[in-house]
């Protein structure tokens, strides 16, 4: 079957869950980020054919929506991996090729090749229950890639892994995705995933695309509180656009500070956590803001949860950007 390699061109709606348009060129990695319930999983499951969607979803010129899940050239790595517990790692990976008509020996041979590439060559006979979380996730990725999909969907691939394992997998995944010539859609909660792996970031909020652009642009100019929080920025929205500033540029005081009333807020400390060398406060202003203070200052000001404080930021420390300019 000869066909164009135009990548992904989607404008679809899962009624009541999500409506989104996105474009991805072959070889591109698109990160989908957004809070729980934003519609990330619905969108990914719609692309995989597991939930019914309306609209258009072209993959290399072929409309996916009239096709059933098994007829789409789409690989999905499930959030909880969903490796078949009764099959060995090898048979899990061979399942796709076998289901698509490859003979058993050949399918197993291919599976071994994929496991080898994932650095799991010696674990091929193990069942999922005998693998660590990171190993199981690699098997799940190998299983999805073994069908040679034109669209790879990764639903929170680092979820549930501890930090060092996630870091190692992230590096490895970046390498595999560089070699992969299809489109990748990566659902993530983690700004680091988006920055390290993605060419484009699509921010979903309440079932709509709230922002899209390059990872750098989205990180520098977040338009939703969720993304701002992910990248460790404060973001304010008003009629003219967005104002963002870093938590470490925020001054915390117990009395109302002098200066611009626009960049001054008050509220109770909601939480105080160690963040690098500083103490990061989440303050219950409207909207909630992050502020970094030194541990000494936190002690002297008695910044425990519940303490009423004033926050201010210098006008020179804020970055302003408009509604209209689309990032990317």
């Amino acid at each position, binding site marked *: 079957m000869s066909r164009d390699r135009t990548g992904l061109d989607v404008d679809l709606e899962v009624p009541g869950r999500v409506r989104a348009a996105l474009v991805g060129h072959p070889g591109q990695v698109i990160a989908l980020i957004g809070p729980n319930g934003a519609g990330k999983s619905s969108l990914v499951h719609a692309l995989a054919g597991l939930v019914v969607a309306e609209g258009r979803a072209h993959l290399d010129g072929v409309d996916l929506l009239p096709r*059933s899940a098994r007829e789409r050239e789409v690989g999905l790595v499930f959030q909880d991996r969903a490796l078949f517990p009764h099959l060995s790692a090898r048979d899990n990976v061979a399942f796709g090729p076998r289901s698509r008509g490859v003979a058993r020996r050949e399918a197993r041979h291919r599976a071994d090749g994929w496991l080898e590439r994932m650095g799991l060559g010696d674990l091929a006979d193990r*069942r999922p229950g005998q693998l660590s979380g990171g190993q*199981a996730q690699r098997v799940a990725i190998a299983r999805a890639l073994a069908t040679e999909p034109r669209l790879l969907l990764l639903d929170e691939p680092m979820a549930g892994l501890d930090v060092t394992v996630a870091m190692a997998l992230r590096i490895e995944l970046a390498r595999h995705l560089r070699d992969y010539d299809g489109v990748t859609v990566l659902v993530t909660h983690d700004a680091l995933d988006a920055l390290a792996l993605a060419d484009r970031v699509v921010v979903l909020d309440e079932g709509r695309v709230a922002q899209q652009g390059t990872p750098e642009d989205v990180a520098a100019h977040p338009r939703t509180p969720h993304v701002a929080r992910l990248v460790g920025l404060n973001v304010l929205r008003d009629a003219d656009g967005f104002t963002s500033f870093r938590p470490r540029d925020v001054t915390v005081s117990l009395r109302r500070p002098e200066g611009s009333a626009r960049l001054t807020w008050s509220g109770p400390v909601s939480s105080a956590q160690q963040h690098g060398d500083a103490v990061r406060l989440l303050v219950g202003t409207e909207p909630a803001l992050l502020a970094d203070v030194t541990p000494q200052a936190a002690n002297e000001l008695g910044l425990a949860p519940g303490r009423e404080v004033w926050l201010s930021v210098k006008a020179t420390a804020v970055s302003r950007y408009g509604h209209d300019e689309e990032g990317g």
Partner: protein
Amino acid sequence: MTHDPLGRPPAVLMVPAVLAVLVLVVPLVALVAATDWSQMPAQLASEPLREALRLSVVTSTVAMLVCLVLGLPLAWLLARVDFRGRGLVRALVTVPLVLPPVVAGIALRDAFGRTGVIGEPLLELTGFAFPFTTWGVVLAHVFVSLPFVVIAIEGALRSADPVYDAAAATLGATRWTTFRRVTVPLAVPGILAGMVLGWARSLGEFGATITFNGNYPGTTQTMPTLIYVTRQADQGAAQALSLVMLALSLAVLLLLRDRWLGDRGLGGRGLAAA
């Protein structure tokens, strides 16, 4: 009794619970106690017993296989396919579960008897009629056991995580491939438990079988029927036959517990959660 941090179980619950155990256990102990062991070797060697036992085991086993072949697809349909009237089908399947077996026998006769709705055309076309044959025994067994098998297997299929079916679909598997390679293997412990349940129900079947098939040694006389007719003439022999059935039932129970309901059943779930 080990110390329970939540406090001692109250007597109002303990007394009925102990009574329940006694109600279930005392008759079985009495059965063993009342048996005249000197008669046992002769009873075990008797031709009617061996014939009835063989017939019971064969018909129950065939009925179980038929229940599997028909029941597994039905259970899958009820568990995995959303169709109109699913609730009605499930209710209809459950009816034989609560139907008195004698009534089941009469109903079978109306359907499969020589003048029955299906029985009459079947007899004219093939010259074969179910009643009073070993196949009639199997049919009666299937009728009473199938609901148990379907409900047990449907429960097993429902408790399996549907995400595996979804994963198989995204990997390009047809529903038939998914059924064979994913759904059924993951539900094996529940399917086997359902089969054993169906087998045990068939083994004990009496009412529908004797109503539909009568009581012919070698063709339709199963163990329960034999025990019933022997009891009228020879209480001691019936006693010995009953003990054989008790032993058989216990053997099945032990097999079920050790092989299927023990580590493997839980192990499968543990793997799925890992």
